[in-house]
Structure formats: C-alpha cells, structure tokens
C-alpha cells in the first residue's frame, strides 16, 4: 500500500509530540505513531484533549503504533467516544490483532469505568462525636480490664502457687536486670545536672554545702522514681503492648483461651508482679547513682569532698523522704504494666495496629505516671511528709 506509506512518512516528518510517540492530524486522518505505553503517553493525552478534530470525519490510523498497552487503548477509545457526536464518520484503520484485542478489552469494560466512589469521610461534628464515644468506651473497657485483673489477682492470694514464677523471673530479668545500665546512666547524669544547676546559685551565697540537700531531696523524693518510671514505660511497657498485640494478631491469645487458660493469668499477672518488684529496686539503684553523680559534680565544681557531702546528706535526708520516693514506684509499676497489657489486648486486625497501640501505650502510661506523681505531691504536702 504505497498510499499508506506515504501518509506515514508525512506524519513522521510533519509533527510529533516527541521523536517516538504521538499522533498527527492531516485532513480527516489521525495518524498514531510510536510507543503507546503508559510512560510515554502524557503528551498524547494533553494533545488529544486540546486538538481540534475535523468536523465531518476522522480516521484513526494505528499502523504506526509499535506497542500499545491498556492506557493507550483507553485513551484512543475514550477520545473516539468523546468526539462521536453522531455527525462525524469515525473509523479505525490498520489495527493489528493484538491492538484489536486491547481495544475490545477496554470497550468491554468501559461500563465499569466510571467516577470511582469516594471513601466516606465523616464531618467535623461526627468526628468529634465518634471520638468522644470511643474514648468513653475505652474508659469502660479499661475499668472492665482492671476489674477482671482484680478478680484474677484475688484468686492468686488464695492460691499463690498458681502464679507462674518461672515467667515472673524471666520478666524480672528483662524488665529489671537488663534495665540497670540505662537507668543507672541516666540517673547519674541527672544527678550531675541537678548539682550543677543548684551549685551555681548556692556558690553565690556561699552555701555550697547545701548542694547535698538539693541533690538528695530532689533525686530521692522526685526525680529518681519519675525518671525510672518513664524509662521503664518506654522500654518495658511498650514491649508488653507489642508482645501481647502480636499474639492478638497471630491468634495466639485465642489459642490460649481455647486451651482453657485465662490470658490474663499467663500474660498479665506475671508481668504485673515482676514489674511491681522490679521498679522499686530500680528506683533504689537510680537513687544511688543520682546521688553519686551529684557527689562527683559537687567535688569537682564546688570543692566539696565526698565525706562532707555524705555527712550533710545523712542530716538532710529523713527516712520519710526516702520512703515517699520508693513508695511511689510500685504504683507507677502497676500503671505501666496494666496500661501496657491493656493496650496490647486492644490490638485488632493487622500488624499496623500493633504499632499504633504501642505508641498509645507509652504515651498513656507516661501521662498517667506524671499525673499520679503530681497527685502524690499534693497528698504529701497536705500530710506534711
């Protein structure tokens, strides 16, 4: 067909969107050339919507298309459908078998190609309402969880040998012993910082010796329990949520239920008991490391030798202040363990949910620890401890 070849030549030389892919209109003939695949078609798409189509007839010549994919076929089909106003004569020429298959394919499915349904997005008011109700639900669930836990716990008092002591020891190892280095280091650094900040003021007044009071009281009463609880919440609380959450996703928790073992008894109780034992001990360690840090700083910055520091410390500190610090630790431990496990059980569906609940668990337990700490401070001040 010499005529067709001539047309092709003209089309090639006349204009092309780029060197390989495009189409050109000459008279009533639209000549398509090149590689009509998704990556190459952006210019063709633009041109097709902008070009002025001949009013009486359009012949699409596909002879120059080297490869066609569904995107190309859809663009062609869509254009033909759009310009088909009843007056134009439309035809497609030089279609090979493979291209025809694709054109038939998009035509067959064109019914289902419509504006995709939009996912439902709730309005502001609805979002607030949903959030509020879900928060309330969560509080009730939390109370429910604590109630169940209390029942399991009270049963434990009747039969203490039922507790899985092996698991408790394992948890003590991972939540307690393994946390010693990081708790110690951070408490030590906090001790240094407190001594330094207090020392600046005290030096001006020549009251260097009182740095022991500042470091001693603030570390032992407040900072050591709080810092330890925060580290443990981040380190251990998150691990509890992740562990139980993963078991929820893999249906291991359901497997426990099906075997007839209460998940609370085997998953929560050992963790709770272990953490209530471990956190006060960690706090004692943090006390010691914090005081040690303060002592180092006092001797290097304020020339206060260690025996003077320790003598002053024994005068400044009372048993009450020591116990008020240590006494908070089991409460913090219970909060961290209960919140961590509760959020673990709230994991639902996919692995993505494990990450989300772990974040919530850490934020919530740190939040609650600080609130409870503040409540303790108020209570102690009223009681005059």
């Amino acid at each position, binding site marked *: 067909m010499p005529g067709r070849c001539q047309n092709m030549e003209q089309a090639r030389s006349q204009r092309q969107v780029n060197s390989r892919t495009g189409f050109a209109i000459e008279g009533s003939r639209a000549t398509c050339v090149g590689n009509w695949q998704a990556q190459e078609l952006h210019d063709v798409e633009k041109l097709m919507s902008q070009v002025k189509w001949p009013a009486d007839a359009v012949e699409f010549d596909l002879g120059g298309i080297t490869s066609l994919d569904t995107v190309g076929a859809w663009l062609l089909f869509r254009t033909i459908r759009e310009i088909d106003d009843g007056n134009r004569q439309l035809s497609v020429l030089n279609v090979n078998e493979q291209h025809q298959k694709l054109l038939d*394919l998009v035509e067959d*499915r064109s019914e*289902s190609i419509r504006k995709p*349904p939009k996912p439902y997005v709730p309005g502001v008011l609805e979002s607030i309402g949903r959030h509020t109700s879900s928060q309330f639900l969560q509080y009730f669930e939390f109370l429910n969880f604590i109630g169940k836990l209390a029942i399991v716990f009270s049963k434990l008092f009747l039969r203490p040998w039922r507790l899985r002591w092996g698991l408790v020891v394992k948890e003590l190892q991972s939540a307690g012993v393994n946390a010693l280095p990081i708790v110690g280091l951070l408490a030590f650094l906090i001790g240094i910082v407190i001594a330094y900040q207090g020392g600046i003021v005290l030096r001006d007044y020549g009251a260097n010796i009182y740095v022991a009071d500042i470091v001693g009281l603030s570390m032992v009463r407040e900072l050591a329990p709080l810092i330890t609880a925060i580290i443990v919440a981040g380190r251990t609380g998150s691990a509890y949520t992740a562990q139980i959450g993963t078991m929820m996703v893999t249906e291991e928790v359901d497997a426990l239920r099906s075997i007839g073992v209460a998940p609370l008894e085997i998953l929560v109780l050992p963790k709770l008991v272990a953490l209530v034992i471990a956190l006060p001990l960690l706090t004692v360690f943090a006390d010691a490391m914090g005081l040690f840090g303060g002592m180092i700083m006092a001797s290097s910055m304020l020339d206060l030798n260690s025996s003077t520091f320790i003598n002053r410390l024994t005068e400044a500190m009372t048993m009450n202040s020591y116990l008020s610090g240590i006494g908070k630790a089991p409460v913090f431990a219970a909060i961290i363990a209960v919140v961590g496990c509760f959020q673990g059980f709230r994991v639902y569906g996919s692995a993505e949910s494990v990450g989300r609940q772990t974040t919530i668990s850490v934020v919530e337990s740190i939040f609650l620890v600080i609130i409870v700490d503040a409540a303790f401070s108020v209570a102690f001040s009223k009681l005059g401890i």
Partner: protein
Amino acid sequence: MAEHILQAHDLVMKFGRKCVLDRISMQLERGEILAIVGGSGSGKSTLMRQLALLQTPTSGSIELFGERVLEMSEFRTLPLRRRMGVMFQNGALFGDLTVLENISMPLREHTSISLETIEQIAMLKLALAGLEPEAAALFPSQLSGGMRKRAAVARGIAMDPEILFLDEPGSGLDPVSADAMDDLVLHLKRTLGLTVVLVTHDMDSLWRVADRIVLLADTRIAAEGTLQEVLESGHAAAHKFFHGRRGRVVGATYDQ
C-alpha cells in the same frame, strides 16, 4: 522457537549450611503459564522470589529480558522491575490506602498522565480483576481474602507487565473463589498476553491453567514439562506428588 524472556542458570540458595535450592536451571517462554510446584518447604516460593528479583541467590545467574540482572545494581534493575508484576500470597496491599489508590500507585509513580485517566485505568484493572466498582473505595482491612487477592492482582497488572508472578493464588480461598481465580489468570493471559509464573500446590489449578510445570523435590528440579509429561516422567517425587490420594481424585475427574 519461542522467545525466552526469563532464564535461570544454576541457581543455588543456602540458608546457613542448609541448602534449599541446588543448581536450578530453567527458562520461561513468552506467553506461557508456568507453574512451580512442590511440597511444603521445597523452596518453590524461594525460587519465585529469586526470579522476581526479590531475593538474591547464593550463586547462579538470572537473565531477564535478555539482561543479566544479578550483576546489575538495584537502581539499574528498576526499569526491569516495572515490566513485572507480583501478587504476594496475602496481597501485601498498602493498609493506609484504598483499593483504588493501591492500584493507582504504580501509575502515579511511573507515568505523568493525568490523575483522572489514572483513576479510569485503575477502575479498568479493578474490573479486569473481577472486582465490583464499589470495592474501589474500601480499605484492604475491609476486604475478604478472595477480594484482597483480586485487588493484589489488579495492582500487579496496573502497568501492563510482561510477566506476572502469582504466589499461591488459590490458597486460603474456597473452591468457587479458587476456580474464579484460575479463570482470572487464563483471562488475563488471553487478553493482555501475559506470561505468568505461579507457585501452587492446588491440583485443580495445575490441570486447568498450567501450560508447563516445574516440579521441585529435594532441592532439585525433579521433573519438568507439561502435566502429562511430568506424570509420565516416572520420577519418584512426581509419583508421590501427583498420585497421592488427593492428586488421583482430581486426575480421575479430569480424565472422564
């Protein structure tokens, strides 16, 4: 002579001292449906992951579209990866995107056609994969197992790949859905001219869709060829695999 679009030579895979694949050599011809079969733990998924460039073998070479890919940098293989689609066993759909966004994603990343057209193409692929238009707005967590696999296929064919890898397309589906999945594979091969590699141990699928079968046993290729050839190969593993009680029942049905 058909064109070999994928060739593997002497693939070896070792995990520690355990050898999973031992000197596997095979070819994939354009337009065929190749099934990789074998018992659990026979390394068939590992082999598919290597062919799909998702895992690097301990040694051996892979020639994909005429290029030796194992010597290439990850970056340079990207254009080749675009010419392949993979359906993972559990779909591996992105959880925070809707089905439509999942399918649109490859088109958005690799082309600069308008969003409207991309969405239309995504709806087309959705329909091709046999899903209702309503499914477009759903999130993967709202889909049933069968729908998730179909959505995953739709994402796999979003860019009109030349090779489609399917990891256990029928597993976890009821017989009717599994049948529909087989129909889908045949339909895609016919309409888009796809070359398909599928990993399966579903006898029905083998009878219905596979043009050629590679049977893995004891880290080697035990038998290769059409189902008939594999059955007649007389290899012990083939006998065990196909003439077990399950295999025989299906075979008898089809012989009638």
